[in-house]
């Protein structure tokens, strides 16, 4: 069994196609949509976790590409460079799942990786470039 996170970019004309339906029905893959922003007529993004057999996974990715979807492997790990971090807390303001929080009282930065959906909002927001992705 393979489980991988994929970062999908949909060109505007594909943005309404039911691709997750086809991944389930045609390739027996289990999709878990971690994050999606798709609007008709606009470029869309989806962070998708796929679980299934290796051959099915590869066929599923080939199907996505044939449909014009740009497929990139999403980060498999996200880590904090504590030497660079100044504990300003700005990352907590953009972390919707609440993986990055400030401890009550001490205001120290707490990173609960189990809650992270790898949306990368903190990577962009961090003024110290202290949040890094590993692939």
């Amino acid at each position: 069994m393979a489980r991988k996170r994929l970062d999908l970019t949909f060109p505007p004309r594909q943005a309404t196609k039911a691709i997750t339906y086809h991944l389930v029905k045609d390739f027996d893959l289990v999709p878990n949509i971690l994050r999606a922003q798709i609007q008709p007529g606009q470029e869309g993004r989806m962070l998708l976790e796929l679980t299934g057999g290796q051959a099915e996974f590869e066929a599923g990715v080939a199907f996505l590409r044939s449909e014009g979807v740009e497929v990139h492997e999403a980060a498999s790990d996200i880590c904090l460079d504590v030497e660079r971090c100044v504990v300003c807390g700005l990352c907590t303001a953009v972390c919707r799942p609440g993986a990055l929080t400030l401890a009550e009282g001490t205001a120290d930065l707490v990173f609960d990786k189990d809650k992270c959906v790898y949306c990368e909002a903190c990577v962009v927001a961090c003024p110290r470039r202290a949040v890094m992705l590993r692939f």
Partner: protein
Amino acid sequence: MSKSWEEINARIASGEAAVMTAEEFGALASAEGVSEAARTVDVVTTGTFGPMCSTGAFLNFGHSDPPIKMGTITLNDVPASGGLAAVDTYLGATEPSTMHGIEYGGAHVIEDLLRGRAVRVKATGPGTDCYPRTEIDTYVTLDDLNQAYLFNPRNSYQNYAVAVNTGDRVLYTYLGTLLPRLGNATYCSAGALSPLLNDPTYRTIGVGTRCFVAGAPGYVAWEGTQHNPNQQRDEHGEPVSPAGTIAVIADLKQASPDYFSAATLAGYGVSAFVGIGIPIPVLDEDLAATLALTDADLTATVFDYGVQRRSRPALRQVTYAELRSGEIEIEGKRVPTGPISSLPVARRIASELKRWITEHRFTLAPPLQPLPQPGSQGFKPLEIRTEEAI
């Protein structure tokens, strides 16, 4: 109860001064009362560590042989001012690199200098009889420079806005990334530890005040730019939105990268986290009363940055205790909050300043000239005029 500057400085010099951080003083006052706290404590230390864009350094390179009158100057490809004497420059923190844009700017050059790294200096000049060289390309470290001093025209804002976005697209601002439809709220103040919130009417903070600047002993040099003492104030005399500011000066060679950190604010630009700490003498009970205020007593105003105008709508007022709880309510919606100013580093600065006073006998300087007081100057806008209208 009242104490003079001289009495307090004598106690510092003899090692007898009682010094507390503003947070410790607030806790003492709440346990034993403001009068008792005022009687027993001599100095209260403050601290703040947030992005402060109006920051930069004056540098003097010394003369090459043959010498050059530097006109265009870059440091690690970040342009610096060529508008001073031959080998003097001012490097502004927010200046982006010509190569890397806002990912590397003036603040990053200053941080690299503080970390002892060599910085590439490239300059061109017109070539004159006294300065015949027209080009130079070399490397300097902080030690190589004759003078290097921070001169920050606006630091340590007395209170600041809380930013939200009621619009329907993400905004990239100097207060961070604002998520649409009230997706988050960001704020930037050390609250109860903030220097100017501890002395709201600038009784002890003025020109000549000795203070902590990026880890170096420095001075308040002047009122900060956009200093506005006339903002609306609450029952404690505290402004409820951005008000007073200070300009500070300090030797960059004595500063520390622990208290100066370059910043890139996504979609906005370069800035610098600057550590500022000011010691405040507990002269009397009136001053003690404001020193004792906590995050629950101090208020900030929430502004809607979704309205891209000079005057943004004020949505409500919130306390710093509410902001620090991680969530505030706006228009019936629970909005997650996030700071930009580091509370842990602000605490470290207040503690470090306390150590300077108790261990190194860092004495206090009464203002040589007060900052403009409430009721004096205001804050003028820039009007757009045509030549004909003048």
